[in-house]
């Protein structure tokens, strides 16, 4: 709920543009991390007509928007974000450390798992943890450019907002992507079109939208059930609960505590099996998809991108149908050297995970910084 570290701060630290870009890259990483995680759980559900499937679908759709918005922010501050292979390991959620949140939401949302898996109690608890709101109270968290993890996404973006405000003169309207405007009739400003200080209201608007749609940032003492996504940020095309935040959608499922039938699957199907083949196809397409994302958010127009993106859904579903848990990269045991040898981007380095360090750096990453 509150960031214990932030409460100890007495003045607003000064951000460098490199620190802000690191945070914006991390924002893209975090938003992107959720998509395979949520999608995998969604496609594990056999009946698309269930409430759980539809709620997750609506959140996945919006997370795609958030990736676009976060990438637009990054590009506005001169960083073309890179898309590394996300890692789904143990209970590790990139850039979120619930030790920093008081009270610790894990007391409510346990057990939980950050590993790819079917829609179940562990996954749903993780969904809720990811989207857990930041209550805005008397102690407004202050952005600390040296901090790489936060107690909630809300705190993370609050920090980003501090740095973004300090460095608004760096804003440039470059490499802006806009695929979702038709799905949000009232959402004005999904892209940054103004340079310098004039662009900052657009930056702030995007940060607010991500938080309002996602965790449903709420004033202190206001229940999440009373939070409503402002009309300006509501989906107008295909969301039956457009005024609900991600957290509210997940909490509704959590309170219902019912779990629809899912596919049975194993993490490591036998080599040569249909499930193994499905995993390999998913991995290959996902790898190509990452390249497409890199290209799209650095001003390119990757021709096969849409095909790759739409095929991912089928690739994930095929894993489940063939008894395999979807896999998006090398097994967690594979080292960075093996990843490099395979030409894949491995994120984060194993040693950082093993030490419990925040995985803000990916390796190897070739982020493009524009002047």
């Amino acid at each position: 709920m509150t960031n214990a570290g932030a409460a100890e701060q007495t003045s607003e630290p000064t951000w460098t543009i490199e620190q802000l870009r690191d945070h914006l890259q991390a924002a893209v990483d975090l938003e992107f991390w959720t998509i395979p995680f949520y999608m995998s759980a969604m496609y594990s559900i056999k009946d698309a007509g269930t409430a759980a499937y539809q709620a997750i679908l609506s959140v996945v759709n919006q997370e795609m928007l958030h990736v676009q918005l976060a990438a637009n922010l990054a590009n506005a501050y001169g960083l073309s974000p890179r898309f590394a292979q996300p890692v789904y390991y143990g209970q590790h959620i990139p850039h979120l450390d619930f030790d920093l949140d008081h009270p610790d939401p894990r007391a409510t949302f346990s057990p939980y798992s950050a590993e790819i898996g079917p829609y179940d109690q562990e996954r749903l608890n993780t969904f809720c943890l990811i989207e857990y709101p930041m209550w805005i109270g008397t102690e407004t968290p202050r952005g600390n450019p040296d901090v790489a993890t936060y107690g909630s996404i809300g705190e993370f973006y609050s920090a980003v907002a501090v740095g973004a405000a300090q460095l608004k003169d760096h804003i440039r309207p470059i490499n802006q992507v806009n695929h979702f405007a038709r799905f949000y009739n009232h959402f004005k400003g999904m892209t940054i079109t103004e340079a310098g200080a004039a662009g900052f209201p657009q930056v702030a608007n995007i940060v607010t939208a991500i938080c309002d749609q996602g965790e449903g940032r709420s004033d202190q003492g206001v229940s999440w059930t009373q939070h409503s996504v402002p009309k300006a940020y509501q989906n107008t095309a295909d969301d039956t609960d457009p005024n609900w935040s991600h957290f509210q959608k997940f909490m509704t499922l959590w309170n219902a505590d019912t779990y629809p039938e899912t596919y049975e699957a194993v993490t490591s199907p036998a080599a040569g099996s249909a499930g193994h083949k499905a995993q390999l196809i998913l991995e290959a397409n996902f790898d190509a998809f990452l390249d497409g994302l890199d290209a799209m958010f650095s001003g390119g127009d990757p021709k096969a991108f849409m095909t790759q993106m739409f095929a991912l859904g089928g690739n994930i579903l095929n894993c489940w149908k063939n008894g395999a848990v979807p896999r998006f990269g090398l097994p967690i045991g594979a080292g960075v050297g093996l990843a490099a040898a395979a030409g894949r981007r491995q994120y984060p380095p194993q040693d950082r995970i093993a030490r419990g360090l925040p995985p803000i750096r990916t390796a190897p990453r070739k982020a493009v910084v524009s002047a």
Partner: protein
Amino acid sequence: MTSSVFRIHPAIGFARVGDSEEYYLAPETMAGMPVPGKPGLTGGLPVKPGTEDEPITASDLRDADGRLKRQAARFRVFAYPADGAAAYPAGGGTEVKLGDRVGDKTVVDIIWTVHVANKKGNAYVLDVPGYDGSIIERYADGRTPPLRNVQSEVGQTSLTVQVPNVNDPERVKAWTTDPGPRAVGRDLRKAAFDAATEARAGTTALPGYTKLFPAGDPNTVYAPRGAIDTLGHIETDDQGRLIVLGGYGRACSVNGYQVLGSDVDNDGWFDDTSDGPVTATLVLQGADGALVHVDAGQAWVVTADPAYAPQILNTVSLWDELYDTFVRSFDLQPELYTRQDGYKRDYAPSFPDHVEPVFKAASLQEWTTNLPGMARQAHRMVGEISAKDDPARTIMAGLAFVRDPNLPTQSNLGAPLMPLGLGDSGKAFLSPTYTQYFFLEQWDKGRFEAEPSRPLGAGERLDRAALSACLGGRFSPGIDLTFTVRQPDVYQMDWWEVGPFRIAARPLSYSRAVPGQPFLTGGYVPLNSGHDTVEPGDMTKFMSVPWHTDYNSCATHPTSPSVRNITTLYWSWPAQRPVHVRVAAEVQPDGELGPYRYSVRGTGTGDPDPANQGRYQDRGQIIPNWSSIGVVLQGSAIDTVPGKAMPPNAFLEAESRLDGLPDPAVEPWPMNELEPTV
């Protein structure tokens, strides 16, 4: 006498209205699919009259006065080995033409008899206020919806009745257009379905037949484009084939102009669409000169709306509907499905016959709908899937985006499930048929044939081409035929004898016709009247009256039943009723396409609410304007835009006569209806 059996193909043929005396022939290739032997040509183009298979171009759409030509249905007789036509597909089959040898005899005549009628005025309403369920359910348990025209008057005779009897002869006479049967052959090459032409069945003249043209007198009806004094005509070509022409697209109301208050049920109104049986008798002459008459079977002809996008294949076509019905109700292919065991999971569908059409149809939707850019790209990738591709590596992997008809909840789920179109009556969204979905499932598992092991015969291909050019899936009510095509009782059950997809006609004993009395009755009622009760007019009577208002209204709608909190609009029948088109005349010199426009546009079509756009706001305005709407054709077939080279594989609107172009251009989906103001 002969070791052959004879069948007429297509089993159901489709003529289409036009306001010209001239015509072209119905397509004989399958819409949306490659045409064997003609690289670059997409099937579904109509055929130039007098030719075997020469496709029309845009300059063939209208006559010298700019009138829209009618589409004629061409029927042929095929011979099959007597012991070789009991399975489906039968394959093979040889067309029988004048002068051909059949066994030891020569075909000296083919006598065709056709009897069409229009019974829409004496049918049941489609739209019951407050009811958004399935239409067919209203016929269950001996019930029927209310009848049309229970309060209206014709001429001086009040037909106001408390409990209308659909078979009341006075009611039948008042609301049925029935010219009676006509016959043509070697000696009488042409016969009109009008009041002046003598009724005739085969070689028998029927001078006492009671012809009914209740909207045929221009002095007593409101007839803005002429009274309905004919339902078209039939003729034969030099080879003895039958050509059936329908009406002129006229709509009339009795007792002066009556407001068109409904999209589908307008009391007092008539149109000149029709349907009815087609029969043929072969006249064979032996070496001794003796003549033998051989029954060549029965088909059915329907006259429907014009084809405004003949090459754009519906994702669920009328073919898919009939095929699905025959597979699941008549054990058409026991190796695929039996009523006892259901679908056979070891069956391998044919990629080009069973799977590819779905993919091609999906890819073609961009030419009659304004999909967002990313969806358009995805749809194109679907259309490029070939039999060589590993399904798991395609964009259709896992069928993640295909609505499963076996899961009822999915009929209320929109994107990303496809098709992204409005559903059948009682369903928010469209689903493939059960058989289509089964084929896709088998393909997804890698169980399919790259080529069909049992290809269709030439006549069977005509059956399929005719039905593939028509709308399926969303029968609310539809364009060509409607929900009754899913009822097994409209078909001849012994398909292995007569051929599949044959309508179960009521035997028409014209010798029993009584002068002054209507020959036809109220006719077929689904779930009520049983087998072999389908009369002329019974297949189209469940459609909109007049058809124009339904066509006009069915651009985009919110779903029905509605989906909570969703105001998004979806297309009704975009492949059959284009909504958004790209105009050939707006192609840039470099080949760049212009913006999307509404197909129905110009004066009288504007409205601030997207839910009402792309149609005439006053339903009455479609009556004089329907024939001015343009037709979407493959670029290579558009020869009416001087000085511009058309992209050969784009499908563009040509020959629109509607005034002006709207500004601004149509925005891509998703579009929303305006939120209700409180």
